């Protein structure tokens, strides 16, 4: 197995790499500017990062060209890229939350063991609109009820708005187990 971790010039990318290591030690970190069509992996992980999905047209291109069988996991900006790539809308979130904590409200029985656990949030933007025919909503945040966790119904895409790799997130190993279980389905 091989993981391709796309780094959007973020300062949390290597935390994500270390969080993913129990799943697979073969993780290639590639800066978003160096993405090439021939890069192959079983799982592509889109890192968090600054700016907006539309500032990364080459990443949007890259994702549109990956096969539907390739698993893609997006974190924060990564989620926003996947939502944008599916015709959804990303807008400013006021006030922005950086280094703040929220509880998850789980909406899907398979993930219920993470209900009311604390997760870290780092975002100025959020997806206001996603295609409900394309995505299942797995979780929202407790107070503001905004989408925290999405799963694509046809493609093998999963995305989180929160940061599973942050030290503020409770039970990071359980989040990883959920990712592993989803990959094996």
């Amino acid at each position, binding site marked *: 197995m091989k993981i391709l971790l796309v780094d959007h*010039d*973020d*300062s*949390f*990318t*290597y*935390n994500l*790499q*270390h969080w993913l*290591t129990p799943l697979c*030690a073969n993780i290639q970190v590639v800066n978003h500017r160096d993405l090439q069509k021939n890069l192959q992996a079983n799982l592509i992980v889109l890192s968090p*990062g*600054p*700016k*907006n999905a539309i500032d990364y047209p080459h990443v949007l291109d890259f994702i549109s060209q990956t096969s539907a069988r390739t698993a893609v996991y997006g974190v924060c900006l990564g989620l926003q890229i996947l939502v944008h790539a599916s015709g959804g809308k990303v807008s*400013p979130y*006021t*006030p*922005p939350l*950086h*280094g*703040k904590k929220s509880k998850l409200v789980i909406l899907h029985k398979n993930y219920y063991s993470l209900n009311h656990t604390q997760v*870290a949030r*780092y*975002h*100025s*933007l959020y997806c206001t609109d996603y295609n409900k025919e394309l995505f299942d909503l797995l979780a929202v945040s407790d107070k503001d009820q905004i989408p925290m966790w999405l799963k694509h119904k046809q493609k093998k895409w999963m995305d989180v708005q929160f*940061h599973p790799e*942050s*030290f*503020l997130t409770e039970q990071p190993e359980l989040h990883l187990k959920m990712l592993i279980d989803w990959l094996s389905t």
Partner: protein
Amino acid sequence: MKPLICFYQEDQYIYSDHYNIHSCKMETSVSDFLNSIEADFKKELKIIQINFEYNNFALFKNKKELYSSDKATVYVIHQHKILSSKQLIYKIPSTMTNLMHQFSTLEEKESFIHKVEKIKKEIASGRIYQVNLTAPLVSETTHTPEKIFKNYFEKFNGHYKALLPLQNYDLICFSPELFLKKQQRNLKTQPIKGSLSNKFNFEKELILSAKEEAELSMIVDLMRNDFNRIEQTTSAKVNFHRAAMKLNYIQHTYSEIEIETDKNLVQILEATLPGGSISGCPKIESLNVIAEFETYKRQAYAGTLGWWKNDDFCLNLTIRSFIKVKNQLFYHAGCGIVYDSVPENEWTEFILKTGSLNVQ
């Protein structure tokens, strides 16, 4: 030779007046310079100083310089003494007086506040999560660096003090912040974020503040990242989060992160410089914002300094520092700007960090 002083262990200082100075040339990278020093003087005790700009020189090349300085300097120490703070103060011959420096800021309050507002807009747009905005202050002085060091020693308490006679200036440093400490395989950092005047209650005003908590949490995740970048087989862990640091002029919160690593100083610096707490998050974009918004190069300020011997080293973040150039004395202060920042309060914090110097 002018004496050199650098923090060593708890209440112990390196004091030397017998050393050689090596400076990093403009065209040489700091990494190459330090690698060549390591090859020639591995076992010797060394004191090193690296400017904030480090290897990002191109990004800041159009900024004004307050004084001329080398990118990095290493002192190879031939003879030294280890002194306690009492012995150190006794050793410096200067008299104790009440220094009356009148500082003026090189950035007007209105301009600083305007920048904070603009940075908040950059945060709202998603460009950055936090950025450390700083500005210099200047005063005239007739005193020697030793006298300034001795007279501000108690006022600016903090573990990582130093007095370095550099080629073109003297650096008088009262930093309370540990950047990197490596002992055998163990590497630690203790970032500081969260500041409060001593007039207010630490528990109520600092620990309960969601803004101050988020500022530090963000830098903890960033420093975990920079440490995790160094190693694949071991991971960074947070030893404690939001401990109290109560200084004579301000109170802070700080955290500790560590990792086990066999990497050397240069490899570690390449993954961690400039320090997270004095740049911002994400670091790359924060440096772009700093280059856009700050008027002057930071030079020695917000860089790093400390000792290095064999594979062990201990480096501070060079904050709360005076730079003496002829009869001019510079001091810098800065604040972590987040979306919750109230511009007026950030200016108050900026002044607070001058530690009751007289600021016009």
